[in-house]
Every structure is written in structure tokens, then in C-alpha cells.
């Protein structure tokens, strides 16, 4: 043990937690590569952490607890009211854009009818197909907000979808960029998922572009939009896929983004399906 070892050991736990600034992390890594004792110490600490996780996670959860909580939630019938002011503004902006966009995209003679159709339960169910994966994978999963390198994302996507990545990146406005891209699963369904975020971490936007194979009875012939809680869900179909753009942006931004990504996605999937 020398000063370098003392110094490295002071950082080992933060190193394991990925909390070190990049420069310090590299210094620690260099030292670890040269020092078997500190490497062994790192291994011990990692092992303790894993054992601790296993031990805590083995704690059985009382079987009736979830039912009890569901019951308490239903009994406690004070439904919180949404912020109607903001909601109305977002809704109005969305409706206006929908009218314009649906008119352009579908050449509809009566856009109101087209919008009214979107409120149906069937469409809500189809839009929820995409929302489920966004919630499951991008919002509430403990995924690291870390931005991956393009090569890593391409490897995660595999040859089938890797080429789509730069095309999507090219279509993103402002400070938005793809930070992760992969295949994932939610509710027993397979998704191809591009997680897009704003550059500013503190007030960043979070967007998912989600593709999944269309199943029988699922159809989104236009560009359809709904809002569920704070999420804007925009969906469209392309060949044998459903595509969704889901975000915490406002209705207008969300729809614009989906409309600018749609041709790229459709073009890619057409070639992909053909090839």
C-alpha cells in the first residue's frame, strides 16, 4: 500500500457506483490495471455489494400487500384534478394542429370527423401499445440516462435497424439526440426503441420513438395523437409496423416531431420489408 493505493481506495466505491468524474475514473482505472491488490479490493467491494443486493432482494414481499393497497386506493376516492388551464391550452394547440396535419396527411374532407374518431376506445388501445413500452423502458425503468456511443447503439440494434439510427438522428430538431437504441420487451411484446433526450440534463425532454410489429386488428392509418396524463402519444403505421413518438413535450412539438420522423421511418421500413 502506498499513497497511490490510498488514493485509489478512497474512490473505489464511487467508481463502482459510476459517480466519479471522467478524469478521476480514468486515473483509478489506470491504477487498477497496474495494482493487483487494489483490483482485489475492488472485487471484494463489488462482491459485498452484490451479496447485499441479493440478500435484500430475497426478502419476501407479503402476498396480500398489493391487494390491500389497491383496495385502499379505490376506497380513497379523491381523484386529483388535473391542471385544467394548462390542459386546455395543450388540447387547443393539439386540436388545431391535428386539424391541419390530418388534413394535409390524409387529405380529409371533414377533419373534425377524423379527430372525433380518435377518441374511440379502439384507437386508445392501439396508442397504448406504444405508451406501454415508453413507460416501461424509458420513464420508469432504472435505465441509465447516459448517452451511448453510436457504435454501441448500432451493436444493440443489430443489422436490421442499425442503419435507421443516423437517419433518425438527422431528423431531430434543436438539441434533441438519440441517447440509447435497443430492442426491448414490455407486456410480452417486442419493441425497437430509440430513446431521445434533450442535451440539458436538468430540464431535458424525454422522447421515445418506438416500433413494434403490427398485430391483427391493429391499425393507425393516419397520424393519431392522444394524451395520457403528462404524455403525448403520437402513432402511425408503416407497412407491418406500428410506430409511436411518445414524449413529455407539448402536443404541438410532439406532433411536429412525429410528422418529421414519419417519412424517414416509413421509407426505411418499406426498404427493410422489401429487402
Amino acid at each position, binding site marked *: 500500500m502506498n499513497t497511490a493505493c490510498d488514493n485509489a481506495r478512497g474512490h473505489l466505491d464511487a467508481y463502482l457506483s459510476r459517480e466519479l468524474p471522467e478524469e478521476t475514473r480514468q486515473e483509478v482505472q489506470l491504477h487498477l490495471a497496474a495494482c493487483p491488490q487494489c483490483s482485489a479490493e475492488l472485487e471484494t467491494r463489488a462482491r*459485498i455489494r452484490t451479496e447485499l443486493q441479493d440478500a435484500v432482494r430475497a426478502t419476501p414481499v407479503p402476498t396480500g400487500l398489493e391487494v390491500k393497497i389497491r383496495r*385502499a386506493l379505490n376506497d380513497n376516492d379523491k381523484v386529483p384534478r388535473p391542471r385544467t388551464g394548462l390542459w386546455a391550452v395543450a388540447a387547443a394547440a393539439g386540436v388545431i394542429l391535428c386539424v391541419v396535419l390530418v388534413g394535409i396527411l390524409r387529405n380529409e374532407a371533414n377533419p373534425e370527423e377524423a379527430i372525433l374518431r380518435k377518441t374511440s376506445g379502439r384507437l386508445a388501445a392501439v396508442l397504448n401499445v406504444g405508451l406501454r413500452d415508453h413507460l416501461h423502458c424509458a*420513464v420508469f425503468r432504472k435505465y441509465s440516462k447516459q448517452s451511448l456511443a453510436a457504435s454501441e447503439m448500432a451493436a444493440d440494434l443489430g443489422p436490421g435497424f442499425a442503419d435507421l439510427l443516423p437517419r433518425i438522428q438527422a431528423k431531430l430538431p434543436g438539441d434533441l439526440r438519440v441517447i440509447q437504441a435497443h430492442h426491448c420487451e414490455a407486456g410480452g411484446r417486442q419493441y425497437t426503441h430509440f430513446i431521445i433526450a434533450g442535451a440539458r440534463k436538468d430540464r431535458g425532454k424525454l422522447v421515445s420513438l418506438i416500433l413494434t410489429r403490427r398485430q391483427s386488428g391493429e391499425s393507425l392509418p393516419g397520424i393519431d395523437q392522444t394524451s395520457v396524463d403528462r404524455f403525448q402519444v403520437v402513432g402511425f403505421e408503416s407497412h407491418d409496423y406500428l410506430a409511436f413518438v411518445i414524449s413529455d413535450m407539448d402536443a404541438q412539438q410532439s406532433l411536429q416531431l412525429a410528422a418529421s420522423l414519419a417519412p424517414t421511418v416509413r421509407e426505411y421500413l418499406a426498404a427493410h420489408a422489401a429487402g
Partner: protein
Amino acid sequence: MFSKHPRTDEFETVALPHLPELYRTAARLLGDGAKAEDVVQETYLQAWKSFARFAPGTNCRAWLFKILVNTIHHHRRSWFNLRRIEDSEEILEQTAVCAAPVPERIAREQILRALNALPADYRAAVLLADVDEFSYKEIAGMLDVPIGTVMSRLSRGRKLLRGQLSELARSYGIGEVGT
């Protein structure tokens, strides 16, 4: 199409998947399964009441854990005679000077006992960082303390935990001297 109010089933869909983690963390913090059940139930009711104010883009899991931590904090005084942190400083000093190797295989029961022996504040930091894998910044937000305090509690908590495990090794007669 824009008028969907947050409903109980939406809340349940996003919030209930975190139930096992919340319960396990509560059980370890409180050392009592029945109290953990009460606290987790209260956490969900609190969360539901403020769901409409739940900020967009916020991490739901971190938000639920913050409510859990607050709920526990609220009950703490009536439920516990918490061991003061100062008491453990002595143990910390002792373990720092005579570190024996940590045994190769640690039984779950032993590691949980070592965890339970940590003062509550250290235990909370270690659980939230090393088991629930929250970032230091997120933990600072949950515990409502500066990030430096989180780091110092973690450093001491982890060191104490290792110390407890070395102590265990020594009691079995494994490895007499550390580095």
C-alpha cells in the same frame, strides 16, 4: 382526446411495479415487516393524492422512494430510539485500523445482520445507493441533505459494513491481518 384525467388504474400501472422494492427497502430501514407494510401503504396513498402534481419527466421510482423516506422519517420518532451516529464512530475507528479480510462466502442472514447494525442514516444511504442503485444526487433529494452529506454517510456506512463482515471473518478465525 386530450381530456383524460389521471385515474387510479393509470396510477397503479406506473406506481405499483415498484412495490416490492419499496417494501424491501422499508423493511430494512425499519427492521419490522408489519411497520414496513403500513409505511408502504401510506406511501402509495400519499403518492396518489399528489399524482396530479407529479412533475413531467420526473422519475416515478425516485419520487415514490422520496415519499417513502419522508413517511418513515415522520414515524421515526414515535417508533424508534434511534442509535446515535456518534456511537458508531468508535466502531468505525476500530475497524479501520484492524481490517481483516471479508470472508469469501457471506450468508444472507449475516450480511443483513451487518446492515441492521448500521446507524439508521448510514443504512438508508447504503440501501438507496448500493441496493436500489439511485445516484448520489437522487439520494440527496430524497433525504433532503447536501450531496456531500450523502457521500460521507455512504463512505462511513460502507466502511462499517465491511468492518462488520471482517469481524465476522475474525470470529470464524479466518485471516488474521489485513493489508
